[in-house]
């Protein structure tokens, strides 16, 4: 029985060593104080993001124009402007960094678009399907 105890003890030591956290130096631990933060020199501390919104123009047989409204998902207006339906247009704006989705309304059209890598691709072309 003495041998069994030694085996169990040895296993506990080995298993304990395997479960010990490894500080790989890539993900620093969270400090207790602000002044001990390890922050990259290039970090800009911004809580906002610069977003480019690319709006795809759709050719029309006659000029068509109306107000295009961009909001967050709570409906808070970010941008309003007259937009000609056939114009391809890019807009730049600064948004809270945590916003991932915008809502674009153009006439009776309204769709959500994701912000991906600081860019939003807006198109109101319908799906190619039979009516």
């Amino acid at each position: 029985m003495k041998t069994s105890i030694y085996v169990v003890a040895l296993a506990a030591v080995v298993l304990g060593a395997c479960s010990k956290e490894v500080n790989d130096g890539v993900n620093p631990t969270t400090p207790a104080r602000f002044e001990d933060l390890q922050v990259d020199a290039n970090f800009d501390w911004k809580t906002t993001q610069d977003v480019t919104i690319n709006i795809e123009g759709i050719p029309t047989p006659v000029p068509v124009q109306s107000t295009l409204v961009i909001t967050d998902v709570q409906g808070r207006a970010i941008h309003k402007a007259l937009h000609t339906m056939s114009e391809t247009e890019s807009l730049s704006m600064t948004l809270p960094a945590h916003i991932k989705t915008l809502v674009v309304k153009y006439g009776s059209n309204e769709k959500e678009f994701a912000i991906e890598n600081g860019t939003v691709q807006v198109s109101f072309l319908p799906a190619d399907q039979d009516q």
Partner: protein
Amino acid sequence: MKKSLLLSAVLALGGVAQAQFTQTFESGSRPVEVANCWSFRNVGFTNTSSEVITGTYSSESYGGNGNSIFVKTPWLIWNNGNVTLDARLRSLGNDNQGVNVYFIPFDNGQPNGEGAVSGLVYTYNFGAQAAPNVITPQNLSFAVPAAVKNGQPWKMMITFYMDNTNEILTDNWSMPATYYSDPLNSCLPSTAILDADNDGVADNDDDFPNDPNLAYLTYYPVNAAGFGSVAYEDLWPAKGDFDFNDLVVDYQLQVKSDAQSRVRFVEADLYARAVGAGINHGFGFEIDGMSPGFISSVTGQVLTDGYITLAGNGLEAGQTNAVMIPWDNTESVLNRVGGPFHNTDPNFGTGTADTVHIVIAFGSPYIADAYLYSTALKPFLIKGRNRMMEVHLPDRAPTDLGTFNLFGTGDDDSNPGAGRYYKTSNNLPWALALPVKFDYPVEKADMLTAHLNFAAWAQSGGVMFPDWFLNLPGYRNATNVY
């Protein structure tokens, strides 16, 4: 003011009636045509050279065997004359292949506006033709029925019938009609647009329907009826306690622009919500890269101490960029309730602050609102009301009146030549700007003990927890948040 009634069709046509409406399928895109209010069922576009009648594309119908196959035009106002189009079979087949033409009136009581389909107006049977005529494009022509020329919107519907494996190809539709659909109103017929101030923006969309110089009202930060905050540590160039409540200023910009999206006015509401400091400061902001010449006037500033010099338009004098000083003495805009600090120690009552309402009027040439969103708005603290002593957000340069003499002293590790400002040697800031109203730490509470994901956000370069300031489960220690 006399209301202006604009027929959207006339507006859409630029004021010139269109006598002939055509469809040549050269967009090559069914979605584009559907966006312009055409309808297709079992009809697509082909660019196969052996099938195209003219140009690059023609329409092709498919899926016989009793399937519904049609094309419907948008709503049109029809005139005298003939409808013409080219049509052919793709290949020879039986005698029962052709097209039928109907018209559909507008019925406001129907969800899609389509009333009862008319009786057959025109029919053409390819089967009666001898080969190879059936595969040679035939020019079909028929008169617009009298009932359709009543000044009301009608759609034309062409249906196709053919062998299960065959196709009917068409091109070069020409109709004596005027486009009368509104692609931005569910493709219903165009309606009159009310535009009281004639600025080109419909009253329904116009935030200022009776002012021709204004059309739109938007807010910055994105927080209608809400505010953003800037928060400072005021001991620069020395480090402080990092509770970021030495001065907390809430702000909201209301941007008023015209129909061309040019900014005419910005109205800024600002107030000092917290002062966790023993030093009395001033507060200003610069619009980086904007010449003072773009601004015709600034009003509403609270200046009591005499150390700010204004130019004729209300901006601060001696500045290359537009600089405004909402207040030069924070105490002059506070309503304290006692205690050594203002709204940072929960053991004392909550005081208020006056809302300083700044009105910035822009002059010609007007800037696009996109410039305001993307430009650097640079709020800064004027330390101890010493005009040279500015404390800015990280990596934001001082204004022309801010000193460079303290860079590199104390805990400051700025390097102006490298564009590095107001950071410590381990890259920590003396100020933060938030797009929401900041729930700052209580007096002397380290930021990391209040906002529990702040460290992960900062140390990940902003990748983790970009929403660290929100009040979500597990995001904060409420005891240390004021």
